[in-house]
């Protein structure tokens, strides 16, 4: 298994800094997502790692070895393109065996490896088909088999699921995870879909305007986002900005207590609270007793019902919008126009950089 590192990668495209001193390590055998909006540089970083484009500065290392100047065709990477890029004039089998032949594996050995890869992606029996005769999901599997059959040093996935419809995408996420675990390949996965990044990744690196904003496990980033961008790009968040005091932030909505380290007293500070961390207590609610440190008043503006859960939009005393996610375990506690109390623990008031 290969540890892949990008060290202070810089890349300019037509005078625009697409990657700005990006350093990130991809752990052996794990799946790391590069998550960011379009234009954040995530695909460029993937292409630099693969050798599809040369960086203007910095190094790419595979197990400590500098491969920056190794050309694409000798770098031994497996790439799944957003468009799949299957060779239309070749059968499924010919597509998959192509890379093996290029690396000197021929005959019976190549046939066996191809069969094994096709079995892994569950396409056995479709060897003689042409890409055009396959469904989108099947094409995707061929692309994956073709990329992993050569046992590449790193598997690169460029938004491979974005062309599939929602249902198929969810199935393929699970499949992709299984195949990645079975193959044990160090994997870099580019996506702009936060849900995909959360479900698939061992680790996530969030990119914004050519810089890594935060990296860590999905759980760590979700629970402890460092910036407003990270908090809002991975998941949803309510933000409260005000002046730092002892153990809390004095905001227009009231004093909000936090368990996290604050900037110097008197300076500006922002707190992020995930929508599902907040509890709603209606005026008629019996169990208003709570151990939560934070309690604020708000008026229910709208309730968006989504089956298992509801998103409740509220207006705080200062007019700011607050979003709360509740499980629909019982009949709704609140109705639009009703004044309610919101409560949450100081441990869920995450201090972030604005």
């Amino acid at each position, binding site marked *: 298994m290969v540890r892949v590192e990008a060290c202070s990668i810089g890349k300019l495209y037509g005078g625009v800094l697409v990657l700005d001193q990006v350093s990130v390590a991809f752990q052996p055998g794990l799946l790391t997502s590069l998550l960011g909006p379009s234009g954040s540089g995530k695909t460029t970083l993937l292409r630099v790692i693969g050798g599809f484009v040369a960086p203007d500065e910095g190094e790419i290392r595979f197990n400590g070895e500098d491969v920056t100047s190794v050309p694409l065709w000798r770098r031994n990477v497996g*790439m799944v393109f957003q468009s799949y*890029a299957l060779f239309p004039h070749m059968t499924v089998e010919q597509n998959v065996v*192509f890379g093996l032949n290029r*690396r000197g594996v021929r005959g019976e050995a190549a046939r066996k490896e191809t069969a094994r890869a096709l079995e892994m992606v569950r396409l056995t029996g479709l060897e003689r088909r042409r890409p055009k005769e396959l469904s989108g999901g099947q094409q995707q599997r061929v692309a994956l088999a073709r990329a992993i059959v050569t046992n590449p040093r790193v598997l690169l996935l460029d938004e491979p699921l974005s062309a599939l419809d929602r249902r198929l995408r969810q199935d393929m996420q699970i499949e992709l995870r299984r195949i990645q675990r079975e193959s044990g390949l160090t994997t870099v996965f580019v996506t702009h879909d936060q849900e995909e990044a959360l479900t698939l990744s061992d680790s996530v690196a969030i990119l914004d305007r050519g810089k890594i904003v935060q990296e860590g496990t999905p759980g760590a980033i979700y629970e402890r986002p460092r910036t407003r961008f990270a908090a809002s790009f991975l998941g949803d968040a309510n933000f409260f900005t005000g002046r730092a005091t002892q153990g809390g932030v004095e905001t227009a909505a009231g004093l909000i207590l936090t368990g996290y380290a604050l900037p110097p007293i008197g300076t500006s500070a922002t707190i992020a609270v995930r929508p599902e961390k907040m509890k709603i207590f209606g005026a008629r609610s019996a169990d208003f007793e709570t151990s939560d440190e934070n309690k604020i008043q708000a008026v229910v503006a709208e309730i968006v019902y989504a089956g298992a859960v509801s998103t409740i939009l509220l207006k705080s005393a200062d007019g700011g919008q607050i979003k709360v996610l509740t499980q629909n375990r019982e009949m709704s506690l609140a109705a639009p126009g009703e004044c309610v109390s919101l409560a949450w623990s100081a441990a869920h008031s995450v201090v972030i950089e604005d």
Partner: protein
Amino acid sequence: MIAFGRIYLVVIITFLYLPIAVMVAMAFNESELYTLPIEPSLRWFAKLAANAPLLSASRNSLLIAFATSAIATALGAMAALALERRQFRGRTLLRLLLLPPIAIPWLIIGTAMLVFFFWTGIGRGLHALLIGHVALAIPYVVLIVGAGLQTLQADLEEAAMSLGSTPVHAFFMITLPLWLPSVAAAALFAFAVSLDQFVISYFLSTPGVSTLPVEIYSSIRKGFTPEINAISTIFLAVSSALIFVFAQLSNLGGKRGSG
């Protein structure tokens, strides 16, 4: 509506093919004066065999058409590759400059070529005809093969390279096979452009060296003979055969793609 469509189609086909059918029929007719009924005869083909200027012009026409097709396709394909796949200064301008020659009347291009060829010392003759036809055919070739290249995803070559192909290997294994139908279409088009060409050929040929259309034109001015029907019939057969071969080829390409 369907009946109307059928009539429309029949009218079009009639106007397209009836004159040609008459010409072919008369090539095999004994009479010189288009008299009916047709008396089958190969007389005009025999006479044609003795008509040295017409035969020599036919030879020139075919020679130039084949050479034009080969040279214009090779140059045009390379130009299209550069225009579609490379980033360089003046690319957009170059692409725009390809279009006007298609729209400029041949009479004007022919005059300009004649003046230019005299000025540079290239003069007239077979070589001048070839240069002129190649220059004329290249924009068509670039347009056709360029369109073919656009339908090919650029990431196919990247995929091949990530699997261990060098850029050259990737081009020959992936791009070229997929590109071949449009290259063949362009070659055929260049051949047709050259074989069809009259105005420019008229300017660039010398009294001794001309092409078939030019020679037919001068013969008609002297007085029409059914030998022209005969040679036209032969050319018709050759070009029909070429079109047929091409249709087979591109059909194969289609089958390769879909099944």
